[in-house]
């Protein structure tokens, strides 16, 4: 798995390319940890357009960082999730607790609302 990270208007877009399992989740964890540590208000979009598989280890990365991100008045929005990845979110009930959008544009809109509410 590769991870592409871009910054747009103070929003970090993390795009994993490939599969996230117990081995590759370490890289994702490091990437998300860096954002949480380095930003006063971490606004993150997880672009799932090229994420083809996720196991509990990958989901665990988001579970671990979600509360610290929200405590810093930031948020993480999941965009472009493929059917097979969305399915794992829904089996665990995570789809009810995080924001999932159809595309990046919508994700940016959601995060702009979070920014405005501070």
């Amino acid at each position, binding site marked *: 798995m590769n991870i592409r990270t871009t910054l747009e208007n103070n929003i970090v877009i993390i795009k994993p390319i490939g599969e996230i*399992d*117990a081995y590759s989740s370490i890289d994702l964890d490091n990437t998300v940890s860096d954002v949480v540590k380095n930003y006063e208000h971490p606004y993150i979009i997880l672009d799932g357009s090229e994420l083809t598989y996720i*196991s*509990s*280890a990958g989901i665990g990365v988001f*579970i671990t960082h979600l*509360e610290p991100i929200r405590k810093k008045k930031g948020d993480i929005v999941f965009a472009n999730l493929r059917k097979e990845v969305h399915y794992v979110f829904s089996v*665990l009930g*995570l789809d009810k607790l995080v924001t999932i959008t159809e595309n990046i544009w919508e994700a940016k809109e959601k995060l702009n609302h979070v920014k405005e509410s501070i």
Partner: protein
Amino acid sequence: MSKKVFSCDLKNLSDIRAFVADSLNEYGIRTEIREQLILATDEACANTIIHSNHCCNQRFIELSLDIIPEQKIAIQITDAGKTPELPNEIQINIQENIRCGKRGGMGLYLMQEMVDQIIRFHESGKNITILEKRLN
């Protein structure tokens, strides 16, 4: 029956998933069932590699797939590591996991949700986990 041995290295999880996918493709198993079995096997093997064998690549897990067309698929995972104490059934509260930043339990829960039956036993010094999925 398809059978393959992997060393207890998390790097091998992608090969384990490929082995399961290829074996199921040979029998034309439909996508939804194939993906559920790949996820369940990945979770079971990750647990076995990490918790029973401490990621020691000198240890091994054996994977075997047995398919009875139009009836059931059984995936057996065998290792000789520490015998885990696992609950028969697991419930998770994802909201509580988020509040506590806790990851535990999700892999076991996913395994349970992806297959119809999980059989675990210890025999001749080996841990055996069988993931069963009905096809009818």
